[in-house]
């Protein structure tokens, strides 16, 4: 079994299964904070999947996308929590 086969048939299904679990929490999440956390972890798992894909295809260009996704995850979490506090303050 080569490295590509191992990554394709073992690692990617496990990552896809964890994405399914995170999406379950994203849909169910009792409070809005749970949904924001699930979104953050979803993007973090997406960075991992992009890393595995760049190993499978041998192209390092995919890592630029992962960098942008990491930036977007941080900025979106900061913005969401800022506006949650602001909405709370107005009441």
């Amino acid at each position, binding site marked *: 079994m080569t*490295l590509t086969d*191992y*990554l394709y048939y073992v*690692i990617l299904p*496990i*990552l896809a*299964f*964890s*994405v399914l*679990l*995170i999406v*379950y*929490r994203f849909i169910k999440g009792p*409070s*809005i*904070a*749970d949904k*924001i*956390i*699930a979104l*953050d*972890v979803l993007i*973090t*798992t997406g*960075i*991992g999947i992009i*890393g*595995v894909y*760049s*190993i499978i295809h041998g192209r*390092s260009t995919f*890592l*630029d996308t*992962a*960098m942008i996704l*990491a*930036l977007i*995850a*941080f900025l979106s*979490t*900061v913005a*969401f*929590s*800022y506006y*949650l*506090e602001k909405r*709370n*303050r107005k009441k």
Partner: protein
Amino acid sequence: MSSVIIVILVTLGTLFVLLSAIGLVRMPDTYMRISVNTKAATLGVGLILVGTAVFFNDLSATSRSLVIILFVFLTAPVSAHLIGRASYFMGVRLWEGSIMDDLRGKYQKNSYILKSEIDDTPEDNVDHSKMEDK
């Protein structure tokens, strides 16, 4: 030889990501979910990206993946702190099995100041046992 190292790193990283996803579903409380995901998911993605750095083995790709690791490790605690603070102000409750709440009555509701002890203005304090359910 290097493919063995890549397999070990990527497998460990994937296990950590899977464990953080299971923790996200199984943990009883918002704050525990924040704690699980800040630690386990960050470590898992870091290990996978170290695996890509070992695989490409040239300067541009390795520095790119190390920059992503540095960025994720720097920003995960900050975002976890911000979302935990916002959810505490929103009135998201702790799990019933939690023994104590160290922040109880110490945040001020209007000025958002954190005091180190419970003061004599109890109507301004954020106290989950006096808030309605959300």
